[in-house]
């Protein structure tokens, strides 16, 4: 197996690809929205969810201490 080729060329730009693929602006926006929605669902939560303690319980805990 040959060694992998290391790609160092710049990433394809939006303008470059828009010229090449000739996707209308409106369709570009539709596809972008589709992708954004998909990626938002995929993103893992970075922090554990915060557990809210009701003010009443908080006061009771403080007085018991």
């Amino acid at each position, binding site marked *: *197996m*040959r060694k*992998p*080729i*290391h*790609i*160092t*060329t*710049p*990433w*394809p730009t*939006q303008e470059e*690809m828009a010229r*090449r*693929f*000739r*996707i209308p602006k409106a*369709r*570009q926006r539709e*596809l*972008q929205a*589709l*992708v*954004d929605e*998909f*990626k938002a669902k*995929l*993103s893992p939560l970075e922090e554990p969810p915060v557990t809210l303690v009701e003010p009443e319980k908080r006061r009771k805990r403080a007085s018991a201490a």
Partner: protein
Amino acid sequence: MPPPPDPKAVFLNVPYDEEFHSLYIAYIVGLFQLGLVPHLASEIPGGDRRLDRISKLIQSCRYSIHDLSRVEVSVAPTAVPRFNMPLELGMTITWANLHPGLHTWFVWESELHRLQRSASDLNGTDPYIHNGTAEGVLRELCNAFRRDRMPSVPRMLEDFHFVDNNLNAILYKYGTRNPYDRSVFMELSWLSKTLADLTRQTGPIA
């Protein structure tokens, strides 16, 4: 000396089969994730003879991938072997030998040792074995190419599933059942490129 090829361009020599469409999408998604741009013979507008157009396209690309996994005799009563992929590989090898440094070609197969039976003249060439799966295609793309900030194969696979799931909607939009149709290829490419941009921006790469 011929003009330098586009350093990001990859000519995809794949069978235009219905059964192959998942692997075809995996190639498109995977190449964009690596910052490369796939090119397909069907994308070239008509005019010249088809073979001349393919030849020009090969010459304009820095790399080419030749998937020989479906070089086989068709099951139809008038069975004929499929020669398009080996023909285009032969054209590419000639071009690369005439102009070393301008073009690098790769052979992809589904099974180990199958190439030795189908094209023994290629002995000494290590094919990339994708096992007939999209995951295999993505894995082997990462074996063939590396770049900084490249995503992991599982992350690429998620993007592949997204594009694959949207294929029917794209086919419907263009009123075709052919995923290799020029307009469909352009849209699949755009979708894959948009995904790759976002994957890169949001990281992480693991």
